[in-house]
């Protein structure tokens, strides 16, 4: 790792990960280590663009790279992503819970409408 010329913060990492193409790269890498060529294929982008995104992800530590012969293999760095995941998932989870309960309220409302006149409050 190229010694932290500029310390990457969680917010930097988050921004890096918030970009849709980069999220897509992370999704692909979640399935395991991949050479650049496979990422290019999976994303349907030109190689220079994919490399640019990979560079951003490497800078914040979200992915790691190693050379194997002539191939460059990328993999996720779960350790670096965990704080981001934790940071976001609290708020997202709050809403997931709320919406889960809202589903129940909606079922009741629909049932009430179907049996209009019924009063089981």
């Amino acid at each position, binding site marked *: 790792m190229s010694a932290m010329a500029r310390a990457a913060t969680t*917010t930097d990492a*988050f*921004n890096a990960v*918030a970009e849709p193409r980069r999220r897509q790269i992370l999704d692909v890498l979640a399935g395991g280590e991949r050479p650049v060529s496979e990422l290019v294929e999976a994303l349907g982008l030109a190689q220079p663009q994919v490399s640019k995104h990979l560079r951003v992800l490497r800078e914040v530590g979200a992915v790691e790279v190693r050379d194997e012969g002539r191939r460059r293999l990328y993999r996720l760095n779960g350790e670096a992503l965990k704080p981001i995941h*934790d*940071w*976001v*998932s*609290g*708020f*997202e*989870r*709050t*809403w*997931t*819970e*709320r*919406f*889960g*309960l*809202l*589903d*129940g*309220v*909606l*079922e009741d*409302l*629909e049932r009430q*409408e179907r049996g209009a006149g019924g009063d089981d409050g």
Partner: protein
Amino acid sequence: MTDKATMTLPSDTEILITREFDAPRRLVYRAWTTPELVRRWWSGHRGEMTVAEIDLRVGGRWRYVMVANGGFEVAFHGEYREIVPDERLVHTEVFEMPGAPEGEPAINEVTFSEADGRTTLSLLVRTPNRQVRDAIIDSGMEVGMQEQMDLLEELARSLR
């Protein structure tokens, strides 16, 4: 079929949450704007809602308070800016932080769109700056952490 809320950050100052519901939008809207119904879902599994006030007219105020499972109160309030029944709501939102001056509010835009009897709800939270956005995201996490602390405390008590 997804029943997970999806969250994205469209910009440095925004949070977008979307979710699909298996119900027509007039019902989703009703569940969203009727105090007795809001009480049933807004606190999630994190506590009990003690106040749900909704004065649903432009310029009207709303206020939600819940007592979280850890015993502390979490309160929000705001003002309605735009109301299109069954379709769209725009309102401000402020997190009531005891002892802290009230900051510039976030502006929430809630859109209800229906297709084939299903409703897609989108909630766009526009914050005055990135610090506020990050604080909002963090606040969800604090409540989550509080829950973990409570479980830990319970566990510790049971070991006495």
